[in-house]
């Protein structure tokens, strides 16, 4: 505590993003999301509401853009003058917090309510947040959601009966704090406690995020990027996407890469932990 602590901590504050001098070990949680498998069914989004105590804000507030869904299922189509979007839509399953390694939100928070964990997550401490919303202002993906109202006491958000559905492992957020996707950190820490009790690290497949668990087509893989056995690791490797690059080597070659892994707004050097796989369309029809 005291001044020595201040000075020491000061010196330690987020030197650089962790991958520069030492890779994460033993955990670095990451995702790979396959746009080709995603059907846009929204099961992941509902799972997130159920798992993370997200308030349903209702029509009025949704209209004002005050919705609280931690993940958005976005859909795009080509507007190139064709009469119909006859190659279907592109669904972006889940635009949620990308858990950036060099997160723009972390540096700007005046009270350090959001910061990096050793597992490579971008943590958000609700109780420390004062609601300056600077983090949201600086988030390129705009995936941080602010509690514009006191949802727990707002009519019809959680009527008495529905409070019983709330997950006790996740805080219910009051007004004036920022929140965002946590990669279901409550599940991660529960898994880590179990693993620690047995003196090992969390195994592949032992922990799933709520969205991943719900996804009927298995479009989402989540796991420990450090673990070479993990599906996520294999996918990132196969797609030649490297965490600490703002431009992947495969993209620098002249001909187009035959691989479809990419990260959104990679060039901003936030080093997101979520890799997406391009949607594929048959060329023969």
């Amino acid at each position, binding site marked *: *505590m*005291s001044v020595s602590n201040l000075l020491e901590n000061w010196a*330690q504050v987020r030197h650089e993003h*962790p991958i520069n*001098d030492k890779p994460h070990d033993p955990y670095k949680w990451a995702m790979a999301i396959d746009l080709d498998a995603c059907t846009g069914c929204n099961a992941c989004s509902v799972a997130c509401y159920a798992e993370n105590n997200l308030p349903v804000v209702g029509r009025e507030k949704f209209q004002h853009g005050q919705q609280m869904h931690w993940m958005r299922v976005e859909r795009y189509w080509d507007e190139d003058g064709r009469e119909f979007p006859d190659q279907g839509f592109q669904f972006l399953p889940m635009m949620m917090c990308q858990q950036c390694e060099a997160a723009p939100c972390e540096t700007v928070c005046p009270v350090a309510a959001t910061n990096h964990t*050793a597992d490579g997550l971008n943590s958000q401490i*609700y*109780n420390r947040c004062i609601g300056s919303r600077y983090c949201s202002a600086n988030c390129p993906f705009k995936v941080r959601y602010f509690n514009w109202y006191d949802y727990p006491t707002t009519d019809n958000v959680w009527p008495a009966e529905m409070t019983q559905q709330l997950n006790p492992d996740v*805080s219910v957020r009051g007004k004036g704090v920022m929140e965002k996707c946590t990669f279901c950190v409550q599940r991660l820490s529960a898994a880590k406690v179990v693993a620690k009790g047995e003196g090992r*690290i969390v195994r592949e497949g032992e922990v799933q995020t709520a969205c991943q668990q719900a996804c009927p087509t298995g479009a989402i893989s989540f796991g420990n990027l450090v673990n070479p056995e993990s599906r996520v690791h294999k996918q990132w490797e196969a797609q030649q996407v490297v965490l600490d690059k703002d431009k992947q080597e495969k993209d620098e070659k002249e001909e187009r890469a035959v691989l479809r892994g990419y990260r959104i707004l990679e060039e901003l050097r936030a080093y997101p932990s979520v890799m997406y796989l391009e949607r594929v369309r048959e060329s023969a029809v």
Partner: protein
Amino acid sequence: MYRYLRLPILLVGLFLAVSAYAANNSQPALTTEDGLGPQVQQPIEFPHNRHAGLHDASDPNKGGMEINCQYCHTYARRSAVAGIPPLQKCMGCHNSIDSVKDRPRIKELFKYWEAKKPIPWKKVHDLPDFVRFNHERHVKRFVEQQNRPVQEACGYCHGDVKEMTVARRQKPLAMGWCASCHEKDHPVTAEGGTPVDGQAYWYSFQKPVKTSDSALAPKAKGPNDCWQCHK
């Protein structure tokens, strides 16, 4: 002009001194008069001293029975939440202890049992809802790994329960208090990979120590990110 400034200088100085002192002596004081923690009204005035207190050889009716904390509070070693023993646990013994069946508190107990109604115990050690505290980890570490006496291990946070009747909260259970322990007396071995070598994250209770065989298990003291305890 100086005489007009004396008072402000004095006040500012006083404030700085007091706050520096307070920060270095970081135990928020308990506010009760007797210093034994706030009293909580429970449906049955449960005598912890009678159950867990020291055996009194001279008068068996006075002393305690030295029952291990974990005999009743079994959940503490199995779950993050300690919970409260089910009524069935009480009845397991009291069904066969005829000598005390006529005591008012035991009668009350039987009333609940016969009505099959759980006893509405009040929480004494009630952490704020956003705190993630894990009993299991602490019991495992102190009792199972370090072989410390159960009462000592539990007592770190729960105080000297064997001396109490109804449990009272003797420790502040505030963040600074948790940190004071984790930083000074009971460093936690982090599983490998916690940041070492000047490469820490925003908040760590103490600067991580680099060990020689860092590839295996670098040691850091205390939880090193906020999400360990905040949910």
